[in-house]
């Protein structure tokens, strides 16, 4: 009798250890993928902050030449402060979209001022912003790939059970959802 009990207990212990190791493996895998996605987000964030820093300089430079475009400057300023004050990633994604659109209109307006387009300071800022937009775009692709991998890992069976237990929430893709952001801005004269 005693021998049987020992075997049963040992069997249970082995089962428990195997289950524990499996759960640890799943947990670490999910955690790693989430960290990957978070790192990818911080790569975007660096570029978004860079853009926030560039905007005031740009607006001041353009203001010196295009004095009658108040509405455009205000839009940029509003969008910038909304983006800087965003509380969550979702909010920030929406606000950055607004900022992209507002900056697009600002550059479209600048096209009408030949003296501005010859200004070295303006050209340097335009180059920096073009580059920053590109970096944001490429970093977003990386972020979305990481998020997609993480999301997939939380959805497949049986990891989805553990993902639920440990509170791994699906992450949201950084998509250009507003039509406004995709289309080339047009200027009205």
């Amino acid at each position, binding site marked *: 009798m005693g021998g049987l009990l020992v075997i049963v207990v040992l069997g249970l212990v082995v089962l428990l250890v195997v289950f524990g190791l499996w759960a640890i493996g799943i947990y670490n895998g999910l955690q790693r993928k989430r960290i990957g996605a978070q790192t990818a987000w911080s790569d975007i964030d660096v570029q978004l902050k860079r853009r926030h820093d560039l905007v005031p300089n740009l607006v001041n430079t353009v203001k010196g030449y295009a004095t009658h475009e108040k509405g455009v400057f205000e839009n940029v300023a509003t969008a910038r402060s909304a983006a800087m004050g965003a509380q969550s990633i979702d909010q920030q994604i929406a606000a950055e979209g607004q900022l992209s659109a507002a900056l697009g209109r600002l550059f479209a307006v600048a096209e009408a001022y030949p003296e501005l387009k010859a200004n070295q300071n303006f050209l340097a800022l*335009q*180059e920096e*912003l073009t580059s920053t*937009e590109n*970096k944001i*775009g490429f970093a977003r*692709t990386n972020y979305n790939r990481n998020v997609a991998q993480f999301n997939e890992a939380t959805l497949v069976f049986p990891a989805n059970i553990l993902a639920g237990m440990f509170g791994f929430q699906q992450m949201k893709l950084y998509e250009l959802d507003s039509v406004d952001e*995709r289309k080339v*801005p047009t200027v009205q004269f």
Partner: protein
Amino acid sequence: MPDSDGGSVDGGAVHGDRPPIRAYPANITYRDLIAENRRKSGVLVGGMIALLIVMGVAIAALATGAGRGDVVVPALITGGIAAGVVGVLVSVWSWYGGANAILSMAGAREIEKRDDPQLFNIMEELAIAAGLPMPKVYLIDDPSLNAFATGRDPEHAAVAITTGLRERLSRDELTGVMAHEMSHIRHFDIRLSMLMATLAGVIVFAADAARRIAFYGPRGSSRSNNSKGGNPLALIIIVLAIILIVLAPIIATVLRLAISRQREYLADAGAVEITRYPQGLIGALDKLGNCRQPLRVVNDALTPLYIVNPLKKAVEAGRHNASSMFLTHPPLAERIERLRALM
């Protein structure tokens, strides 16, 4: 921001938001290319060391007159070991110092971000897009149009561009060219071509030295009279040595040429996957094809590294667009055609 497909002179379009393009051939990923280049690099280093050992033995055979059995065997072993040691040393030098040697042979100087913010911005964008570290950036003071990348891996990589090309290209075109170089870095083409350029250079140098010994060495001295005793083996060894000495540089050259053509297409494809904008590279290749100015400082060993063949005869004959077995680069027209198919 306005999106100018025609490629404005200074502004350049934003490409980061474009949808991805699948540009590699269907059965290839860049991971396959990395594995292949790593393997080829290993084979190359091993092969070069083996070739050097054989040449060392051949040189020893020639130098000792290859006639007297008692002297020859230890001499051959000594020659083989010495050449093997030289081979290993040369490989170590090539691995760690090859990139710097190539850059200084090409007359390139390193620049910083404040020297050319736009070029650095473009490299930073591409580094993010490709998920690779930022390479070092070099300028070559030369009015011709060319660029190359080198280094042993993406962590120790450098890109170099001539001032002529830097000035002639729009932002979009420059992005295309640098993305092509970034693809060479990502594919580890840079490792193979760096080892090729430096090791092949050493092989040619060694064969040259062997030839000198063969023609002006101790064969003409009194010792050769001993071997006239009629040892057929000696003659065979000498003939073998001469064949080797003649063949070695040819082998080295053929090896060098063999690597270069397909990978230019693949680097073009990789560039499109990184930038999602074939038009940039097409515009740049167009300009490169219309340029008739050869590179001033060009070392024969370096030709496979450049984005287009820099040699005078290739450039002057307008053979950028011609197909030939001995050209290190595929014809530009064919490259442009393949890129257009991706638009």
